[in-house]
């Protein structure tokens, strides 16, 4: 009996150690970046003291400010559009869930499983051809928004769909029965019920957009560098503490957005 408890507790200790090891493996590189962004010296090897100098320098760099602006515009525009379209698709999938539409859903999800590089190259090829033929859609923020929307949609649709599936189907009928016109059903029943899911979907899309490098890289124009693209071109000249500072800010922003998404996605109990 005693032996078994002993065995069990040592197993538990080993698992705890493994858990901490995993966490360290995941977060140590991030911690190093954050730490060195506050380094007083221009060195990636020696910590000499605490300083906000790289953050000051960052704010004075016009290229970075522009890239930051582009990232924000791109993330917000694409997330809003993806939310609107994904919401409709999610509702459509729910409404017609009894029909055999599995193949359609696979089509919508294909972008998720496709390697980003393949997706990015295809988008680029498409936009270049389209521009050549019509003169529209010159590579730039516009094409980037379209590209981002395409990979954000499946996530939004999935979140909206799963929220609807988790609801009692007779709620839709109760709204009809209680004198709500189709428009009022959307305003007073569907949107309020979906609200947590929509907030969650928005911040997830936002995170995906800020995170993306590969697809942005292929669909960007000369004037529309985002932060990841700027970082990529800057580190060709070597990693400066300035890059650490940008990375730290991005880690903070993405972590916040992901957290908000998670919190609202958790609030789905009915």
């Amino acid at each position: 009996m005693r032996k078994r408890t002993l065995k069990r507790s040592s197993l538990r200790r080993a698992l705890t150690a493994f858990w901490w090891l995993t966490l360290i493996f995941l977060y140590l590189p991030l911690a190093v970046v954050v730490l060195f962004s506050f380094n007083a010296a221009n060195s990636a090897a020696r910590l000499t003291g605490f300083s906000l100098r790289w953050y000051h320098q960052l704010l004075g760099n016009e290229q970075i400010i522009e890239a930051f602006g582009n990232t924000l515009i791109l993330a917000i525009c694409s997330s809003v559009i993806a939310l609107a379209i994904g919401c409709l698709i999610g509702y459509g999938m729910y409404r017609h869930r009894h029909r055999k539409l599995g193949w359609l859903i696979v089509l919508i999800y294909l972008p998720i499983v496709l390697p980003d590089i393949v997706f990015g190259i295809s988008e680029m090829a498409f936009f270049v051809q389209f521009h050549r033929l019509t003169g529209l859609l010159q590579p730039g923020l516009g094409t980037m928004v379209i590209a981002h929307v395409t990979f954000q949609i499946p996530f939004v649709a999935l979140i909206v769909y799963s929220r609807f599936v988790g609801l009692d189907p007779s709620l839709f009928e109760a709204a009809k029965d209680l004198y709500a016109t189709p428009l009022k059903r959307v305003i007073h029943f569907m949107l309020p019920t979906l609200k947590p899911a929509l907030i969650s979907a928005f911040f997830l899309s936002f995170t995906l957009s800020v995170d993306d490098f590969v697809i942005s890289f292929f669909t960007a124009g000369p004037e529309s560098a985002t932060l990841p693209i700027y970082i990529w071109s800057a580190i060709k000249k070597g990693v400066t503490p300035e890059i650490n500072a940008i990375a730290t800010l991005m880690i903070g922003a993405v972590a916040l957005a992901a957290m908000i998404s998670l919190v609202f996605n958790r609030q789905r109990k009915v």
Partner: protein
Amino acid sequence: MTDLTNTVNTADRAEVADTASRDRRGASSIRMQGLRKQFGRDAIALAGVDLDIKAGEFFTLLGPSGCGKTTLLRILAGLEEADDGQLTIGGKDVIDMPPHRRSVNTVFQSYALFPHLSVRDNLAFGLRMRGEPAAERNRKVAEVAEFIKLGPLVERRVDQLSGGQKQRIALARALVCEPDVLLLDEPLSALDAGLRGQLQVELQRLQKRLGMTFVFVTHDQDEAMVMSDRIAVLDSGIIQQVGTPREVYEHPANAFVARFMGHDNLFAITASEDNWVDTGLGRLQLDPAEQRDAPDGWLLIRPETLELGGNIPADYNRLEGTVEERLYRGSRIEYRLTVNDHPLTAVAGNLGQRMHDVGDRVTIGLCPEDLVRVAA
């Protein structure tokens, strides 16, 4: 809601609710003609239903699952479209009217309370959608909360309620709209037996006080008999019988209705002449009123009408049987007998008489007036 309160006041003051409120202005009659509904290629839910429901009636649609009773209710609500047929509510043709324009409200089996709204906002939902001003809404919600005795529940969140409380709020949410007809889709089926029995009585009393037309759907024949003014028994999308609980129980229109109402003692009639029939039990004499030309059909013997042993009057049919099982149920005793190798159930009220033992031979008396012929 003014109507509602007036009715209640009248009821409280004079206790004449039964007759007085029956003719309340709001109550509407329903007329269905040739309603048909089919799902997919071969699932016929309703095969031509003709039915008249009177204003202010507690009417129950009774049948096994898949008989079409819920489909019929959903057609009344407008949640399902009939393939064919006519439907008028209060003399108004509503067959093409969408649900949000019908003055009909439903109490759903799952209650369907909106999770994003408080109890109060759930109650006000219908009034709000109909565009009633806030002051009016608040007054009506307060009245219905008082009427259904919701008390402090109004302030709760929906996820803090028990099943019974949800049921009452779903009912209040529908009643506050003062519909012409209230539809109830098995609203008690999710509750435990005790609460269920209590709510059956409450619901029936409430309907009498309001004088509103109630259409109730259930698969439970006891529930239907306790609550209803009239019952329609459905099977395979066809109405088998419409009648008062007593008519349906004591004079079922056919073998399906008899079995569904809980009758076991059905015996095939092999031959008949005048007021005599031959069954597996033997030759039995019926009341002359039960005389039929055709020999087919079934003979129904209600288990509570059997006389076991003792003094059997001379004009009764006599049978000899053996007690196979005895089930003591407190208020009554149930005997499973065999007569000529046919099983026969008898129920005797527990009046303190001597009980028959398993294996006893008993004489069974059947009053001719209690024997009912039932069509196949």
